[in-house]
């Protein structure tokens, strides 16, 4: 029967020639490929002694930023949690008390803030949704663990320390920098 698509190939039972029968040329050409690769640059790196270069906007472990005075920027508005497609973020808000102005920037803050790194798909929507420039993804990798509980990162792991800041300046898009110029809008006073 004639084929409808012209994509079928009829199998041929072609007899091999003498040179093909002894297999040596084919083996030698295979060995040549192996030898050629010995002198090439290796495709792998010796991790963890060596690490590859990360993209400027690599989406790794999250950081909760502090502002210039060392106060936490996050105000527990819940926009990261509602935008999260994996529902990895949970938080509990609390009201700032008198005398805590140097700890939290706004009158409301996140008392607990947890990201389940096993659920997280590192899409970066939380970073995009954040109106307070509080959460950013960084080029750090989430480390391995033996249990599941260790992957629920609380504020102790997420908030950057006041002395050892994490640089996210390269992640800021043009639109964000433009928005920051309007001092009146950045945060309420």
């Amino acid at each position, binding site marked *: 029967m004639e084929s409808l698509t012209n994509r079928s190939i009829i199998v041929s039972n072609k007899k091999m020639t003498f040179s093909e029968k002894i297999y040596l040329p084919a083996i030698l050409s295979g060995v040549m490929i192996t030898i050629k690769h010995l002198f090439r640059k290796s495709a792998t790196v010796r991790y963890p002694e060596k690490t590859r270069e990360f993209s400027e906007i690599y989406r790794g472990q999250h950081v909760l930023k502090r502002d210039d005075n060392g106060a936490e920027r996050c105000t527990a508005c*819940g926009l990261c*949690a*509602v935008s999260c497609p994996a529902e990895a973020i949970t938080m509990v808000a*609390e*009201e700032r008390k008198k005398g805590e102005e140097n700890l939290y920037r*706004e009158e409301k803050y996140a008392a607990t803030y947890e990201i389940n790194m096993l659920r997280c798909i590192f899409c970066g929507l939380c970073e995009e949704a954040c109106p307070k420039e509080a959460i950013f993804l960084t080029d750090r990798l989430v480390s391995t663990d033996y249990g599941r509980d260790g992957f629920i990162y609380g504020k102790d792991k997420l908030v950057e320390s006041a002395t050892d800041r994490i640089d996210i300046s390269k992640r800021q898009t043009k639109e964000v920098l433009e928005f920051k110029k*309007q001092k*009146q809008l950045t945060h309420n006073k």
Partner: protein
Amino acid sequence: MAKVVIDGTEIEVADGITILNAARQLGGHSVPPAMCYYSTLKGSGGKCRVCLVKVAQGSAKDPRPMPKLVASCSTPVADGMVIQNLTSPEVLEARKGVVEFLLINHPLDCPICDQAGECDLQNLAYEHGVGKTRYEEERRKFEKIDIGDKIKLHMTRCILCYRCTMVANQLTDNRVHGVLNRGDASEISTYIEKAVDNDFSGNMIDVCPVGALTDKTFRFKSRVWFTKPMDAHRNCTKCSGKVVLWMKDNEVLRVSARKDQYGEVKEFICNECRYDHKSATDWTIEGPRHIDRHSVIAQNHYEKTDLLTLKKEIERQIEFQKGKPLPEPNRTLAE
């Protein structure tokens, strides 16, 4: 009866009702938004100017257009009136200006505000406003005030719609709060922060279109869209007892009155229902409350589909594909 045309659709309404109410009888997209008008409060309206519409033809007797845009919440209809809302670019432009004016002194602290997600001003700015502000001056500042032990007043967020003072005037027997001063210096005050302790004072929270008056028992407990709204009722001697419970798991975080599709409360509830019954066992739960699919509160909420409504909707779409104009959805069946 008066025959009026709103955005090209003719409707027959009772004499003397306002343009806004005529549009609401028609329903659909041509209903002007309203920030200060409240159908259950007498004398409300005419303050925010959000509901401006164009009257292209005054009446059948006098077909001249009205010289300026009119506030639809306080202008009565006349027979033969032709009204343009969404079809008039002039109205849309004016509305953008009004939204910008309303937002001039608004602090835009939505990430903190408990009203975010169910805020009329937020919805209005999203639908009718522009994303940028041209205002560079300092915004007005007020201290936060506790009105009684259950209500928190953020005067910075207030848009001066006067709804709360009308609640105090019309629902409670002695008003202890009002608006002081004039112009942009005006503020809601309780005369030396006197407590509002009337049984129906809590309704101020529900009528407030912004987050100026918020429930202190719900303060920062949860964002609205992480709670599950449930219709519930109980036998109450003071009010109808029909409320919405805003729940998380089995915990009742907040109790509020039921709002209709225009965000208005038809049956006000008493303070006992609002504040003192924060346990699910106190209530007879009727089921999940219908939330508009476009609202952020509808996130992750699923509803059982009414098959009859679905069938009607499919038939409506088939009609449309045949080239007939799309009839309005039949709301009465859906509710």
